[in-house]
């Protein structure tokens, strides 16, 4: 029989954890609603941007393709309690560990890279709330300075739904050229080359923002799932401990009653003698 005080203390601790996880679950539910809405909107606009990049002059594209430096941007979660959200990325990262141009996004990623001794060139925090467009600015500036290297790999969890985030390797720019190239038909005073650059910039900004939103939604989705499981687990644990408490209490009561009754019986039999 376990100690009643110890059991009560455990129950109190688990109840506290239960309350916290339940609150976190509610918050995650609210946040994921907002994030999913934004993600849905951005998903709809993505194909237009892809078509836009394919409409620019191939010679402009070739300038960027000529840059030999390969860049890798890795998206991790900013905070914990996300189950295997970060860990499932690790096998994809390992093969890039010798790349000198790694940008790590998310606090947890920084820790993972330090633990696995993966050198990174830049680190930026991820979104702690539904991301704003300005969040991409520092990374955009780095890529701009590097003249938008065409070979820029993105490693992140792509968001399918709340229960599924698939670890993926993506490319910042389209990898295959198609025959849908059409020079810009609009009449403008702007030089074609400058116009192409503007399109590329717009494309990169939008694409990076899309990744941020996707990563944030995935992080919140994972967190929601973890919290839901935690709430379920703590409820089960609470039920188990409550049962143990009832057993311990009932045993103590039975013990005490039987002692009182047996002592009374003995005294009664003596008196009778």
């Amino acid at each position: 029989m376990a100690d009643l005080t110890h059991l009560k203390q455990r129950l109190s601790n688990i109840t506290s954890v239960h309350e916290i996880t339940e609150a976190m679950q509610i918050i995650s539910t609210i946040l994921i609603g907002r994030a999913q809405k934004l993600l849905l909107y951005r998903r709809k606009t993505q194909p237009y941007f892809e078509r836009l990049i394919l409409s620019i002059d191939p010679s402009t594209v070739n300038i960027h393709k000529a840059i030999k430096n390969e860049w890798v941007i890795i998206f991790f979660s900013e905070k914990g309690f996300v189950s295997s959200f970060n860990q499932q990325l690790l096998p994809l990262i390992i093969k890039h560990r010798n790349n000198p141009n790694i940008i790590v996004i998310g606090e947890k990623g920084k820790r993972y890279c330090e633990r696995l001794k993966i050198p990174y060139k830049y680190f930026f925090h991820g979104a702690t709330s539904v991301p704003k467009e300005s969040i991409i600015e520092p990374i955009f500036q780095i890529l701009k300075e590097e003249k938008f290297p065409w070979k820029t790999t993105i490693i992140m969890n792509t968001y399918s739904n709340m229960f599924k985030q698939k670890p993926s390797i993506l490319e910042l720019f389209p990898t295959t050229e198609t025959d849908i190239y059409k020079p810009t038909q609009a009449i403008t005073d702007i030089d074609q080359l400058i116009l192409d650059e503007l399109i590329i910039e717009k494309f990169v900004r939008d694409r990076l923002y899309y990744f941020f939103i996707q990563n944030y939604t995935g992080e919140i989705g994972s967190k929601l799932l973890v919290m839901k499981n935690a709430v379920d687990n703590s409820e089960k644990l609470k039920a188990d401990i409550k049962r143990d408490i009832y057993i311990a209490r009932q045993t103590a009561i039975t013990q005490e009653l039987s002692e009182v009754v047996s002592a009374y019986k003995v005294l009664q039999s003596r008196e009778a003698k």
Partner: protein
Amino acid sequence: MTNIGKIVQVIGPIIDVKFAPDQIPDIRNALEIYFKDIKTGETKKIIAEIALQTEGNIVKAVSLLPTEGLARGMDVIDTGKPLEIPVGRECLGRLFNPWGEVIDGGAPINGVEFYPVRRQAPKFEDLAFEDQIYETGIKAIDLLSPYVKGGKTGLFGGAGVGKTVIIMEMIHNMAKHHGGISIFAGVGERTREGNDLWLEMKETGVIDKTILLFGQMGDLPGSRLIVAQSALAQAEYFRDVAKQDVLFFIDNIFRFVQAGSEISTLLGRIPSAVGYQPTLDIEMGRLEERIASTKNGFITSIQAVYVPADDFTDPAAAITFSHLDSVTVLSRKIVEMGIYPAIDPLASSSRILNPDLVGEDHYSTAMAVKKMIQRYTELQDIIAILGISELPEEDRITVIRARKVRNFLSQPFHVAEQFTGMQGKFVRIEDTIKGFQRILQGEFDDVPEQNFLMKGTIDEVTK
């Protein structure tokens, strides 16, 4: 002239006998009753021990044998002396019942000295202490609750957690690595286990240095109550007369308390806490005080203690704790994980786990192991709720290493070879310490935790 009384009442194992007013025998005197069995026509003998004197020249005696066939008015012979058992070298290799009869089917023992079953504890000035480790070859014990040479050790655990297996393994290891005389008292346990032990000892050739006494489950409480005392009388002979060190095993001391409780109720005493006898302290104290090392020789005792309903606050378990130098606690939770021996590292302790006695290396390793497992235990609720992956890095490493430490505390036993299919291992203390130190330092962080299960030395983990 023989002092003869008459049976006036028989209630279960309690026989009330009336003597002449001037011939009332002393408490603890042995009584003998001879009668003819109605069915078989054979003459039967019953031995009883006087426990109480009451009004009307009546004594209440506790029978050591079943009282079927007794009738009021039958003659009862007062032997004029307490129960005695044969002691000495001639008893080595033999099996006895609690009142000294040979039960191994061999020839009776003649021409030997007899000792009373109930004797006084040694005098204070004769006692001797030596704070030296008694190496058992069992990693978990040697590291966390080292046994004291000439000391008393308790193996606590609920039903079926492996107390008897550990005792049998220690008897095996003692025979191989220590030598010396050992005495085993089977108190209220399974007769089958006693038989297993006897056969095992005969096979390994240890039997020639051992005396076994059994008062098992099916025996009357009187028999179970005195078997430990009879065995102790044997041990005292070797300590005091032969001046030899003795290993003394009791399996199970709780049954001694239980037998006392049964008798107490039958004698009409008011039960004390949890229904135990009001004389629990003194009964246990008298027995435990006799298990002592003197200037003549050491009695190193290892006692299995059954813990009813796994409740360590039970008075029988609690009273035993206070007499011991080392405590090894077996846990049902660890049994459920399939880790054998199921020793609870946090609940087990030893008086000599002190840097001045066991050395700094041993002490610091044992403390580090306990600290790590303590932290792991604290985190278990959180792990159950959130999972191990959500722990901070430092705690995650602690948990991973603690699990390896926990698994490495398991060990294959020689006496369990037929069940585990693994060869038993005797691990030296220095190898045990080295092994745990290397795990704690993180040398095996990359090795899966399953590799640490049922291993002897640490070198076997990487094989």
